[in-house]
């Protein structure tokens, strides 16, 4: 990713070259300083996770003897695995259903457009702009009455619907980018719609579908309005588990840090990998 080749205009004189060099040095220092300051809280959290509780609240220092005791404690005492499994089930479950429902819809919009397609697409996006808090009361009451409170199924339903507009939107843009001739050729060879979708469209747009799925996983994993309001113990995902550290008796910084590091690590890495596609999905294509 880092390009060390100097592709700037050829320096005309030694002094020009010098000032370009010093400008580059200033920018390098500034860029790295800003990046490190922004990243510092995350770095510090990762570091604190390897400290003892006493070292965690001592004066800040980079020199300490690292220990895994907080990680062991988080696993043994609070049942981290259970919450992590809830997060995995909810994030991947909702992503699976969102893709399942969105693929036919995006296919229709991209390849069989009608007069209403654009309107439908915009309407779908507008449902995403409905504030969750505006429908908290009815959703809570419905969930209470049908027994979906504090269940994984309940969260999966909410997250599927919450991410559906973005998933449809992203798939639509990926499908539209696909060369139409290939599908046409398939049809000429007598492929049915199903064959066309399974043997041509899906394999060819797999990278796009994968990054759409990743975005949906990331958004569900980090969602913290519905998870805090609709789950308590059984189905609580990591967002809700971490929130339990906010109570005064739960203030153990090293354990909080260890649990947090484990909770964000997978998503941080996925996020780094899918930055570009994130922009596509999060801005609904309004920024290219």
């Amino acid at each position, binding site marked *: 990713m880092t390009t060390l080749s100097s592709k700037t205009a050829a320096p005309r004189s030694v002094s020009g070259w010098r000032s370009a060099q010093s400008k580059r040095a200033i920018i390098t220092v500034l860029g790295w300083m800003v990046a490190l300051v922004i990243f510092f809280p995350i770095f510090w959290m990762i570091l604190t996770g390897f400290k003892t509780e006493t070292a965690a609240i001592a004066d800040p220092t980079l020199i300490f003897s690292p220990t895994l005791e907080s990680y062991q404690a988080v696993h043994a005492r609070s049942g981290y695995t259970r919450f992590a499994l809830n997060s995995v089930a909810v994030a991947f479950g909702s992503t699976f259903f969102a893709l399942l429902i969105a693929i036919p819809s995006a296919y229709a919009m991209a390849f069989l457009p009608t007069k209403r397609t654009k309107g439908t697409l915009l309407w779908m996006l507008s449902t995403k702009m409905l504030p969750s808090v505006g429908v908290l009361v009815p959703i809570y009451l419905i969930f209470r009455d049908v027994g979906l409170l504090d269940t994984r199924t309940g969260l999966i339903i909410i997250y599927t619907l919450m991410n559906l507009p973005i998933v449809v939107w992203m798939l639509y843009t990926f499908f539209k980018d696909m060369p139409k001739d290939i599908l046409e050729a398939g049809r000429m060879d007598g492929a049915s*719609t199903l064959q066309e979708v399974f043997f041509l469209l899906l394999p060819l747009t797999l990278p796009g579908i994968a990054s759409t799925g990743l975005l949906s996983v990331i958004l569900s994993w980090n969602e913290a309005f519905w998870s805090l309001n609709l789950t308590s113990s059984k189905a609580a995902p990591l*967002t809700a588990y971490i929130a339990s550290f906010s109570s005064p008796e739960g203030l153990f910084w090293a354990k909080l840090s260890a649990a947090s590091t484990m909770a*964000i690590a997978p998503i941080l890495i996925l996020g780094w990998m899918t930055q570009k596609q994130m922009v596509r999905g999060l801005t609904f294509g309004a920024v290219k």
Partner: protein
Amino acid sequence: MTKTRASGRTVGGLRTLSLQAPAVTLLLLWMIVPLGMTLWFSFQYYNLLMPGMAGFAGLENYEYLLTDPALWKAMGNTLLLVGWVLAITVIGGTLLAVLFQQEFAGRGIARVLAISPFFVMPTVSALVWKNMMMHPSNGVLAWLAESIGLPAVDWFSSLPLTSIVIIVAWQWLPFALLILLTAMQSLDEDQVEAARMDGAGPVAIFFFITLPHLKRAISVVIMIEMIFLLTIFAEIFVTTSGGPGLATTNLAYLIYIRALLDFDVGTASAGGVIAIILANIVAIFLVRMVAKNLEE
């Protein structure tokens, strides 16, 4: 494609309809049912603690809510929170996008580090800041202040809303940076080079070329952030619980208090309707912009 369509528009239309039916039906239900219920409840006397007291309330819930000083305090906090976070993230994001657009050693890694906070779940960001950064005696900021001879700040008791603003801005600055950096990539380098040849300094280039180019991306960032920031919840829930007093209660948190702590469904729903109206005002502009983009 044209061939199959030529056989009859109605066939294509029917197929489109059946393929879209699941997504459209679900989203329609997801939108209409809760929305309708919120609207309905907002005109009802409905308190879960007083089951006998049910019935049509007319506008009384709205009247009760709109004359409640807590609502205006919460609206004020919401505005302050949205306004400050927007100012910090948009101005900061623009400057950082310019910085990270320059070539320097390790730029790719520096960018990734700077974008990272956006991928951290809100409960983690809030608790890491509250404890390890902003703790009045053991936090990193207190240690920094003391090491240069300044008194440590007790962030959450003396500057509660500012603390929330800092945490939320830290989460959303990377979002603005990510979007604006993407928009920067379509900046015409030749135009910049030409301006430079004509003797334009970096400041002039920023104001007359870069900023106009980023105009649309900046407005997208503002609108998307507004929609999310109007209903910030988790960060407040795990740090201040809306306090001290009502100092950090925003509209979303007030609705939560009314609904799930006071069990006053009617008033909470009236609050929900207000939140929806506010978000829709922003959404109209955003949808228009997306629609314009679809035309191109």
